[in-house]
């Protein structure tokens, strides 16, 4: 850190921001039924929802990386007609209310949807009310986070290391694999974590597109919502569980992975 004097104003504003995050957490801890917590969390509704949430959010994060990185690469490196339009619609899920996103997915990929109907007739498979619907809805809302992060990182590279790799005989795909990807690795990690977090907490698109059924489509957020009316203690317990899982995952990624600048520059 350069300099020892830190403006008090900044610290004060930062504390207000921290309060915004900490107060709901304190509220939650305040109403938690500690004595019954174990029993509540052991309930099969909770266990089913936890398992489902974990693997669908990871699967979504994986899909976001698999499809989002190439998309980010194309947006940052290839000039084509309509590029700014594509960039805009890729960020649309960030702007739309998730329920609207879910409804749009239903109209496109539902059983009677524009694409979904032919899919159902030919292959006999449809997304809604299945676990794949959950994965799809989560991927839809989470991918923009990955694309935006990675595209930013790719655009900040000056391309010279890639040029050096090409001069050494590396094909474009090899350049991407062995030079570009390692250089953007910190941003890629950050983007993947953001995408995972968004998928883990997703509710509106999931309930609208995939429905709500214990063990199949009822993820942790849905379980909270459904319990809120009838079994408040369960809802609180599940909320606490989600907070705990998130904190564990996010803290497990050490801070140096977040803040390291793209390598290869200034060396």
């Amino acid at each position, binding site marked *: 850190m350069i300099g020892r004097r830190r403006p008090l104003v900044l610290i004060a504003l930062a504390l207000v921001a921290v309060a915004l995050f900490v107060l709901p957490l304190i509220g939650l801890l305040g109403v938690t039924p500690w004595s019954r917590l174990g029993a509540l969390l052991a309930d099969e509704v909770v266990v089913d929802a936890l398992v489902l949430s974990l693997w669908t959010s990871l699967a979504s994060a994986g899909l976001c990386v698999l499809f989002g990185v190439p998309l980010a690469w194309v947006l940052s490196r290839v000039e084509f007609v309509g590029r700014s339009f594509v960039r805009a619609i890729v960020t649309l899920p960030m702007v739309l209310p998730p329920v609207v996103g879910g409804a749009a997915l*239903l*109209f496109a990929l*539902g*059983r*009677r949807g524009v694409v979904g109907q032919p899919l159902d007739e030919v292959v006999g498979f449809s997304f*809604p*009310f299945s676990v794949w619907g959950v994965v799809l809805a989560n991927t839809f809302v989470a991918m923009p986070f990955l694309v935006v992060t990675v595209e930013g990182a790719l655009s900040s590279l000056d391309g010279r290391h890639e040029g050096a790799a090409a001069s050494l005989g590396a094909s474009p795909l090899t350049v991407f694999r062995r030079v570009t990807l390692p250089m953007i690795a910190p941003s890629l990690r950050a983007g993947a974590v953001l995408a995972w977090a968004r998928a883990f907490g997703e509710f509106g698109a999931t*309930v*609208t597109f*995939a*429905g*709500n*059924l*214990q063990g*199949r*489509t009822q993820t942790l957020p849905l379980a909270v*919502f*459904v*319990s*809120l*009316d*009838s*079994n*408040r203690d369960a809802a609180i317990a599940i909320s606490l569980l989600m907070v705990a899982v998130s904190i564990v995952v996010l803290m497990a990624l050490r801070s140096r992975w977040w803040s390291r600048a793209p390598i290869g520059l200034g060396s």
Partner: protein
Amino acid sequence: MVGLSATVLAACTSGVSSDGTGDAGGPVLVFAASSLTDVVADLEAAFEAVDDVDIDVSAAGSSALGVQIEEGAPADVAAFADTGVMARLVDAALVDDPSVFATNDLTIAVPRGNTAGVASIDDFARDELLLGGCARQVPCGGYATQIFDMVGIEPSLDTEEPDVRSLTSKVAIGELDAAIVYATDVLASDGDLVGIDLPSGVSVAAEYPIAVIADSDRPAAAQRFVDFVLGPEGRSILDEAGFGAP
């Protein structure tokens, strides 16, 4: 002259409305069950035509509304799809003296055209169909569970929607092959939903209670709305929407 202006002055200084009943100003907030969404809009319009009180409606699953009232939501009137939720509020002394204002039947709804060929409640055991119900915590879901028990089927549901309107919209666009919903929902769907009767003898009488919230700050206006709903005009609007008499 002095007497009249005295009341005006009193009204001005105490901030009460000019009808002198002790109500605060502002609209009356009605919490209505999801299945009442369309009919409560008709009731609202009819009431506002004869009374100069403004009605605002918030429609959601009855249990969700019940929780909100328990947490202190500023509702003036509550109208639910099941007496259980209302009983909880009575126990907590949050409402005064509810009355049942309507009843509803449940029925099977299929999308227009019924492409899946659903014929009866027995089809709800078929795995290959996409079937829906309300979440069990919601009145509609509770009633459906009773019906399945009566008929003796283990339903193969693919989703349990948090409120009945989410359920009916998915059936209406054909994403679900069938669902258990209220008869009034089928009527309100303007042909998008087609009803299939339950077997004779199988029925659940859903009772809809209405009450004024105890610490409403517009109790007089709220009571007038409740009276309107219970009265002849309210009755005829409810009848037209398919709701039975209490």
